[in-house]
C-alpha cells in the first residue's frame, strides 16, 4: 500500500502541472508569431507583419483607422497584412528584443529621431536606389523629412511616413483682451507672456511639459540651434557645452525662473498632454506643441477658431529655427523574408492617397512634396505648419548616440527645472556643469 500511494502521488505531482501547461499551450498557440511568416517574395498569398505606433487617441482607434487602409492594400496587391499597434511605452523595448533575437516584424514605424541610432544596429534594410525606385522615388519626399532617414553619407534605413512639427499655440481671446499681437520674436513672446500672467487668478502665460525629458531636450535643441549651436561635431563627438547651447538652455529655463511666466507645478508635467489640458481649459495663454495637439485641445472643449498658431520665435538676430523635424518613419527589417512585399507596402503607405486618408485621424503633416496638410480645417493653421515644417526646421543630430543625447540632456533639464520649482536657482555655470556631465556620459558610452 505504501508503494502504491507513493507512486500515485508522485505521478500526480508531476503530471498535473504538465497537463495544465500542455493544455494551456495547445489552447493558445494561435498567438500569431512575431516573425515574418510565409515564404515567397511578394506575390499574392504572402503575409506581412507590421508594427504600427500609437498615433491616434487610443490604440484601438489606431487599429480602426488602419484596418480599412490595409484592406485596400490587400485588395490591390493580394498581400495580407498582420497588424499590431504598440504603445510608446513598449515600442523601444519591443524593437530591442526583436533586434536581439533576430525575430521581428517585416515593416515597422519608428520615431524618426531614432533613425540614426537604429541604423547603427545594422538590423534594418538600407534603402538603396533599387529600393527607392520600388517605393516611388526618393524625390517625392520633402527634403527635410528625407534627411531624417539616417546618418548623412549612408543609405538611409527609414523613409518618412508621417510629419509633425512644433508650433506656438495661443489663445486668441486672451491675447486680444490684453491688446497683444501674436509674437514674432522671443523677446515679444516673453513680454506677452508676462502681461498674460496673473498669479492671483492662477493664469499663466505659458505651460511647459517641464518634467518630460523628451520635451525638454527638444527645446534645448531648438533654442540652441537658434543661437547657431550644434550638439555634435562632424566627427560625431558631443559638443554640449558650447556657449550657444548653454545660453539656449538657460533661456528656456528662465521662462520659469526669471520671467516667471510658467507655473512651478509644471515641473511635474511629464508629458505634453498636461500642458495641452491647461491651455484648453484656458488656464494658460500659450503652449508649445506638435501639430497633433489639435485633437486634444478640441476634445477638451476648445473650438478651433478660439486658438491660433505661429512659429516658435527666435531671439532677434538668431536663426529662424522653429522646430526640429518630428514625425514617424518607416523601416524594413533586414532579415525579412518578404522584401518585395514590404517595399510594396511602404510604397502604398507613402502614396498621396493613403497620406491624405491618414492625415486627419493621425494629425500629421504630409511628407510628400506639394501636398497640403489635411489635419486641420483651418487653412491658416495648415499653411503655418506647412511653412514651419518645410522652411524653419532642422533635424535632431543624426548620430548613433542621439538617444543618449536625448536621455542625458533631457534628464539634466528635468533636474534643473525641479530645482527651480522647489525654490533653488540655476545659473549659466550650473547649466554648463550639467551639460558637461551629460556630455561625459555620452562620450563614455560610445
Amino acid at each position, binding site marked *: 500500500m505504501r508503494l502504491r500511494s507513493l507512486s500515485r502521488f508522485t505521478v500526480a505531482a508531476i503530471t498535473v502541472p504538465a497537463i495544465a501547461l500542455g493544455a494551456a499551450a495547445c489552447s493558445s498557440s494561435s498567438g500569431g508569431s512575431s516573425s515574418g511568416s510565409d515564404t515567397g517574395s511578394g506575390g499574392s498569398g504572402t503575409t506581412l507583419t507590421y508594427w504600427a505606433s500609437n498615433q491616434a487617441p487610443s490604440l484601438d482607434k489606431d487599429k480602426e483607422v488602419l484596418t480599412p487602409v490595409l484592406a485596400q492594400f490587400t485588395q490591390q496587391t493580394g498581400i495580407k497584412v498582420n497588424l499590431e499597434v504598440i504603445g510608446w511605452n513598449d515600442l523601444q523595448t519591443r524593437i*530591442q528584443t526583436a533586434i*536581439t533575437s533576430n525575430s521581428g516584424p517585416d515593416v515597422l514605424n519608428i520615431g524618426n529621431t531614432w533613425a540614426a541610432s537604429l541604423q547603427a544596429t545594422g538590423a534594418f534594410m538600407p534603402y538603396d536606389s533599387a529600393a527607392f525606385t520600388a517605393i516611388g522615388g526618393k524625390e517625392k519626399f520633402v527634403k527635410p523629412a528625407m534627411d531624417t532617414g539616417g546618418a548623412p553619407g549612408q543609405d538611409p534605413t527609414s523613409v518618412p511616413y508621417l510629419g509633425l512639427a512644433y508650433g506656438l499655440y495661443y489663445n486668441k481671446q486672451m491675447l486680444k483682451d490684453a491688446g497683444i499681437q501674436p509674437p514674432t520674436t522671443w523677446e515679444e513672446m516673453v513680454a506677452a507672456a508676462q502681461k498674460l500672467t496673473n498669479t492671483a487668478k492662477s493664469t499663466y502665460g505659458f505651460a511647459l511639459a517641464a*518634467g518630460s525629458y523628451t520635451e525638454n531636450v527638444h527645446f534645448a535643441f531648438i533654442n540652441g540651434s537658434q543661437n547657431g549651436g550644434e550638439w555634435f561635431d562632424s566627427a560625431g563627438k558631443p559638443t554640449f557645452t558650447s556657449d550657444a547651447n548653454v545660453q539656449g538652455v538657460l533661456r528656456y529655463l528662465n521662462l520659469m525662473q526669471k520671467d516667471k511666466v510658467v507655473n512651478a507645478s509644471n515641473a511635474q508635467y511629464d508629458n505634453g498632454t498636461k500642458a495641452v489640458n491647461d491651455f484648453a481649459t484656458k488656464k494658460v495663454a500659450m503652449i508649445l506643441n506638435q501639430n497633433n495637439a489639435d485633437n486634444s485641445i478640441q476634445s477638451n472643449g476648445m473650438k478651433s477658431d478660439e486658438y491660433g498658431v505661429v512659429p516658435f520665435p527666435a531671439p532677434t538676430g538668431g536663426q529662424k529655427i522653429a522646430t526640429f523635424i518630428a514625425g514617424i518613419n518607416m523601416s524594413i527589417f533586414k532579415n525579412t523574408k518578404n522584401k518585395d512585399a514590404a517595399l510594396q507596402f511602404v510604397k502604398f503607405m507613402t502614396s498621396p492617397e493613403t497620406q491624405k486618408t491618414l492625415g486627419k485621424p493621425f494629425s500629421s503633416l504630409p511628407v510628400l512634396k506639394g501636398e497640403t496638410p489635411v489635419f486641420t480645417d483651418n487653412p491658416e493653421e495648415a499653411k503655418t505648419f506647412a511653412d514651419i515644417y518645410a522652411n524653419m526646421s532642422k533635424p535632431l543630430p543624426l548620430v548613433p548616440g542621439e538617444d543618449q543625447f536625448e*536621455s542625458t540632456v533631457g*534628464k539634466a533639464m528635468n*533636474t534643473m527645472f*525641479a530645482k527651480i520649482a522647489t525654490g533653488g536657482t540655476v545659473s549659466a555655470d550650473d547649466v554648463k556643469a550639467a551639460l558637461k556631465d551629460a556630455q561625459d*556620459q555620452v562620450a563614455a558610452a560610445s
Partner: protein
Amino acid sequence: MSASAIREDDQATTALRSKVTTTKKKKKARRPSPRRSRWLPYLLLLPAVIMELLIHIVPMLVGIWMSFIKLTKIYIANWSAAPWAGFQNYAIAVDFDASIGAALLQSFFVTAAFSLLALGISWGLGMAAAVALQQPFRGRGLVRTIFLVPYALPAYAGILTWNFMLQRDTGLVNHVLVDNLHLTGDRPFWLLGGNAFASIVTVAVWRLWPFAFLSLMAGLQSIPSDLYEAAAVDGAGNLRQWRHITLPSLRPVNLVLILVLFLWTFNDFNTPYVLFGNGQPAGGDLISFHIYNASFLTWNFGIGSAMSVLLLLFLFVVTAAYLLITRERNTTPKAASKPAPKAPARTEDSHA
C-alpha cells in the same frame, strides 16, 4: 504551580519525542535499505530545478557574460561580434569620481535607506495588524479583506493613484494639508525634490505591508492557542505573551519574510518607474530604476549588466551575512515551534 505543570508537560513531550525517535531508529534498522527514499528528495526537487535553470539561472549566466563584453546597439544584432571588454564595464561603474559611478553610488545609498525604512515600517504594520486581528471579532473577515486590497490591486493602478494624489495642485494630499487642515500655507511638491523620498517610502509601504500582514497572519494561525492560555494563567500580560510566545514562534516565518522584504524593496523597479515616470528625482532614484535609465534606455547593456552584477554581489554578501548570523542564534537543536528558551523565561514570569 502551573510552571512546574508546564515543565512536566515539556518533559512529557520530550519523552514522547525520544520514544518516537527510538521507534524510528528501530524501524530503520528493520526496514530494508531505502534506495527509494534516497532518490525521493531529488525527484521532488527536479521540476523546480528545471524551471529555475531555464528561466532564472541560464538567463542570469548569460546576463553575467553580457557584463564582460561591450554590448551596445552596434553589436546587439550579432552578439558574437561584440568585443571583449574584460572588467572595463565594471571599472566605469565603480569610478566614483566620474559622473556615472558617482550617480550609481548615490543611488545605492538612497536605495539602502529606502529599503530599510520600507521593510521596517511594513513589517511593523503587518505585525500590529496580525496581532490585532488574532482574536475573532465581528467583521474581522471584512477588515482582513480590506487590508489586502492594496496588495490585490494591479501595481500600476495602485501606484498611479498615489501619483495622482501627490500632484502639487490637484492632488488629494495637498488638498487635505493645505485646504482642509491648513497645516501649511505653501503647497509642497511631493514628486520632486527632497520630499520625493518620503513619497516613495509611503507608496512602497502602502503596497507592501499587506503582504507582511498576510504572511504573519498565516504564521500566527499555526501557534496553538493553549500556549497563550497557559501563559495567561501564569500571569503574563499581552505584551509579555507577544515577546515570549508570538515572536519566537514566528521565527522561521520572520527569517524568510524579512530577508525577502529586504530583497524586494532593494530591487524595486515598478514603484519608482510608475510613481515618477520620466521624472527620476534624486530622492527616489532606486538602484534598479537607475540601472535601467543609465544603461538599458540607451542600449548600453554591457554597463547595465555590470551594474546588475555588482548589485547581485552586494545583496549576496548581505544575505550570506544575515543567514550566518541568524543561523548562529539557531544552534539550539530544537524544532522552531517548540521554543526551548521559553522554559526559563516562563519560570521568570511566574516568579515576577
